[in-house]
Structures are given as C-alpha cells and as structure tokens.
C-alpha cells in the first residue's frame, strides 16, 4: 500500500499562482478529503497528483517515487471524474474493461475482473447497457468500477457525488466509505461539501486560496479549529462569532460583548483589551443554567424546526447568533426564550485581526 507525499507543491498558470506551496503527507490506506470553497485549488491539487496538470514547483511522490515527470498512465492512480466521463459508445462492461484492454490484460482475466467489480458495485445486471440507459447513481457506480478494476495504488475523486440528488448522495457516500474499508486503497477525495468531508475522511485537509488552513481528523477540526476559516467551514450551521474585548481580572479571562461578560476557558493566551471573536457552536449553547456557563440575554426572532432539533435565529447586541436545540417534540417551548448559557469549556477564541485560535490546550497540525 502506498502513501502520497506533497512537498512545497506549487501551481502557476502563466503569471498567476493558484497553489502556494502545499505540504501534505498521506499515509498508506488513508482516506483524505480536500475541502474548501470554490476556486481554492482542490481540483488543481488533485489533478497534479493525477498527472493531468504539470507541477510548477515542489515534488509529489507516490509510494516513495517522485512522479513529477511521470505520465498519468504510469503513476498507477485512478480517478473518478465529476462528470463521470463514461465512454458513451461502450457498454458498461466495456467501460469498466477499457483500462485493462489498453494495458493488454488477457481476455479471461478482464472478464473475471469486470465480473468481480460489477458484483461489488451491484452492476451485474447492467453490464450490457450503454451509459445513456443508466440512472445517475448507476453511472456513478460505473465510474467507480472503472477506477477500482485496475487495482491502482491511489484513488482520486473529484467531487464524484455533486451531480446526484441529496438522497442518492448520502447513499453513495456510505458506499464509497464501505468500499474503502473493504479495499483499503489510499484515497484522495475532493469536495466542497463539509458534511461529505466529515463523514468520509480519516483526515480532512481544509484549503483556502491555494493554501492549507488545517489538517486533522474530522473531530480535531470540529473541536479545535486552528482559525476562523476552519471554524466557519466545518460544522453546520457554522460556528457563531461574537466580537468583543478581552478583560483579565481575578476571576480569570473573560470577553466583554458590550455589557455582557462571558467567561472564557482557562487555557487561552489572550492579552488584556485584545480584540477577539468569541466562537460558539450552535449545538453547544445551553438553554438551562449550569455552573461554569455564562448567562447571556438574547432576542429571538425566528424558529426553524428540523424535526428532533430546531434552529433558533437570535441576536446578541445586534450580532446574529444561531442556536441548535432539541425540540423534544414541541417547538412551543422556545417561545419567550430570552436567556441562553454559554459553557466556558466549549468556547473558542480567535484573534480578531489574524483569525488565529487563541486556545492553547491543544495545538492541531497545520
């Protein structure tokens, strides 16, 4: 099994640099998801690994071999494209077999491999069909089949689910993860959907503007975002941000949001009167009082029931604030809500200027 190493990888188009020196070490069998907003360079990075884009600087190594000058076909990687790129003139079986045919695999072996892959993906009964006669999900599976049939060292996925409807996406997401558990092939997966990233990844790479903001397991990113960007990107709805000023006194550090004094966890490195953004995940807000939680008055203006939970849209001194709370079967219980409680241990603090996390108890990789 093979790892993938990116060292100071740069991509420039003419005079424009779009990837600014990325370092990323992917371990064998790992499922890594590149996530980030549109245009941040995810696809470009993936395509450099695939060999479809030239590498302008730095090195990429697959399985210990530097592949900067190696053609895509000799890198032993397979890619699933966003638009599938199934050959419309070939049947499903021929589509899956295409790569093997090109590599002059013996006929009998091709037949066996195709049958096996079709079995894994539940395509056996569609082998003779043309792509045009398949549903979106089936096409997606054929595209996957074409990748796995060759037993490549690395799978690359570029937003493979973005053309499917929400339900099918959830289903295929689970299938992809199951497939990974079964085959254990190193996988690099690009998406801009943070839910997909959270559910699929062993490790997530959050990218922004051609740089890596943070690398970590889904839970690491969720609990210890290194900066405001990651905090806002991971988690849905995103983390609330309240602007305030630090005060330090005998009680320990706190943030003043105008006249509201919010206690901070002990392990923050803040200076007196520093401008900060207080980060509060909507799901961490408490509706009932508790020790070590600061009561904060709010003005509630909208309740969005989602079933077992509801999103409460509120304001704290004019700053928007979203709360995610269990409905317990009755949305009426939120009417008249005017006080919430912020538990100190769940609060994040970010420097208002740099956006960096000021929490010190855990430093996550980046």
């Amino acid at each position, binding site marked *: 099994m093979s790892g993938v190493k990116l060292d100071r990888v740069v991509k420039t188009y003419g005079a424009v640099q779009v990837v600014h020196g990325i370092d990323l070490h992917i371990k064998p069998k790992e499922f890594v998801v590149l996530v980030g907003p549109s245009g941040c360079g995810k696809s470009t990075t993936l395509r450099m690994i695939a060999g479809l884009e030239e590498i302008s600087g730095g090195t990429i190594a697959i399985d210990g071999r530097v592949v900067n000058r190696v053609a895509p076909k000799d890198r032993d990687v397979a890619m699933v494209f966003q638009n599938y*790129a199934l050959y419309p003139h070939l049947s499903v079986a021929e589509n899956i077999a295409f*790569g093997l045919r090109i590599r002059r695999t013996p006929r009998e072996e091709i037949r066996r491999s195709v049958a096996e892959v079709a079995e894994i993906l539940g395509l056996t009964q569609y082998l003779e069909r043309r792509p045009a006669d398949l549903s979106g999900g089936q096409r997606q599976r054929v595209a996957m089949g074409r990748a796995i049939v060759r037993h490549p060292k690395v799978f690359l996925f570029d937003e493979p689910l973005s053309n499917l409807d929400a339900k099918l996406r959830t289903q295929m997401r689970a299938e992809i993860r199951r497939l990974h558990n079964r085959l254990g092939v190193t996988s690099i997966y690009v998406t801009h959907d943070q839910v997909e990233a959270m559910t699929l990844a062993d490790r997530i790479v959050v990218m922004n503007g051609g740089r890596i903001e943070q690398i970590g397991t889904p839970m690491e990113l969720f609990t210890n975002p290194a900066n405001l960007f990651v905090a806002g990107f991971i988690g849905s709805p995103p983390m609330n941000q309240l602007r305030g000023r630090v005060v330090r006194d005998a009680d320990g550090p706190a943030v003043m949001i105008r006249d509201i004094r919010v206690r901070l966890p002990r392990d923050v490195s803040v200076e007196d009167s520093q401008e900060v953004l207080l980060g509060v995940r909507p799901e961490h807000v408490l509706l009932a009082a508790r020790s070590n939680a600061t009561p904060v008055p709010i003005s509630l203006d909208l309740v969005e029931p989602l079933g077992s939970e509801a999103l409460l849209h509120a304001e704290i001194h004019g700053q928007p604030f979203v709360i995610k709370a269990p409905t317990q079967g009755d949305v009426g219980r939120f009417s008249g809500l005017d006080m919430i409680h912020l538990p100190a241990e769940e609060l994040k603090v970010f420097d208002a200027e740099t956006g960096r996390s000021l929490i010190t108890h855990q430093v996550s990789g980046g």
Partner: protein
Amino acid sequence: MTQWNMYSRGDKIFAMTCAILVGMFTAATLYPFIYIAAVSFSSGFAATAGKVVLTPIDFTVEAYRFILGDPRFWNSYKNTFIYTIGGTAMSLVLIIPAAYALSRPQLVGRRFWNLFIAFTMWFNAGMIPFFLNMRDLGLLDSMFGIIIGFAVNAFNIILLRNFFESIPRSFEEAARMDGANEFQVLWKVFVPLAKPAIATITLFCIVSRWNGFFWAMVLLQSEEKIPLQVFLRHTIANLSDTEEFAMTALDASYSAETITAAIIVCSILPVLIVYPFIQRYFEKGILLGGVKE
C-alpha cells in the same frame, strides 16, 4: 402526439404554410430525378420531341442496352468507385489526425496552424497554379494524383476540429488515466465519439468524389483512367456530333437525351443506395449519458 385541435388558429395557418412550402420544395427537388428516370426509359423520339413529363413515353430499355453494352462505361464506372472509395479513405486518414491535432490545446503554435489552414478556405492559388503544381509533382494523368490531390479540404478539417473541441476534456483525461496513449485516445475515444461529424465528412467526400468532374477532365488524358462523369461528357459530345448517330436517332429507339438520362440514372443509383447506411450515423446526442455537466 399533440392534437391538431389544440393549436390556435394562427398556429394552424403557420403549420399549413410550412407543410405547403416543404411540399413544394420537395417536389422541386424530386422532379428532376423523376424526369430523368422517365426520359431514360422513353423512346428517343419521344424524348427528343419533349413529350416526356412525368412517366416514360413508349417505354423502352434501349438506352440502357446501349450504355451497358459499352465496356468504356463499365471501366469509367469502376474508376469512379476507385476515386470515391480511395479518395474518401485518403481524406479520412488525413483529416482525422489533422483535426485532432488542431483541436488539442497543447499543440505548439495552434493558433498559427489553425489560421494557416483556415486561410485556404478563402484564398487559394487558383486553377492554373494548381494545375502547374500537379504537373510538376508528376501527378498529371495519374489516378493517385486525383486521389491525393483533392483529399484534404480545410472546411472538413475545421468542421471536425470544432466537433473534437466540443468533446469534454474529461474524456481525454479519463482515457489517459486508463493508460491510453495519444493514438489510443484518438482512435478509441474521440473517433467513436465523433461518429456523427465523421459521417458528415464521409458523405461530403463521397458525394464530391462521385460527382467529381472538372479536375478529372483537366488532369486525366488516358481514356482508361477517366471517371463516369467524364465518360458521360464524352458520350454526350460524341453522340451529338456523330453522323451515324443522327441516322440511328431517326429509328428513334434511343437518342442523346435518353442515353444521357440513362447514364445519370446509373450514376445516381449507388449514392441512393449508400446514403441510408451513412445516414444512420447522424444520430443526435451520441454524447448523451457519457458525461453529466
């Protein structure tokens, strides 16, 4: 099917006007064929007298007997097949790779080459220089000269290039990831995907080769190399000024008109037979289902 009654009055008038115009156009296109066929089966007397309108008058197959009995007819027929098949094959062999290369963004000097080729659509050397060129290349009175000399045409290259350009890049990339080299990308992916465009070009080539007349007449001297169209012209010229023929014409079983018509019918037949087979490839939406954008 939509119900006729669902249309508004204006729509009905529009639909009927369309039908009438299409009908008239069809009639105008079809009539010459019918007329020629009718003449070819009429007696020479009736044809010369201009009596044939829609159906054969004094039905006879004498005109066909006359030309089918002429070995020069068969030889020129054979030549036309050679020029058509050889020329079309040569065109495809040259045009497909050229169009593919011109469609690739990684081609060095792509803009220049595209302009270089498109230029010839509007400006060319002209007849005399072309003739001299062929002469200097030793391609006068040469069957190969006819085949190679007219194999490449800028319009067809550009037509196919545009089609290749419209094929999503991910097909090429997927094929390359699958291990295909440039040739395999072209022959195993792009050519099958471009079938409708290639069928169009093939048809253009076949028709222009089949009807090719002028340059064959100018460049070929030997009787045994001429194609059907040139033979047709020779025959008409001969028939009209042979004295002996004037005599037989009185007998009126065939005439210059009926023989001309018979040769035309013979030359149209293969095109009519081949067309439906090629037409199958003008399938719309062959890319459908391959990609989802």
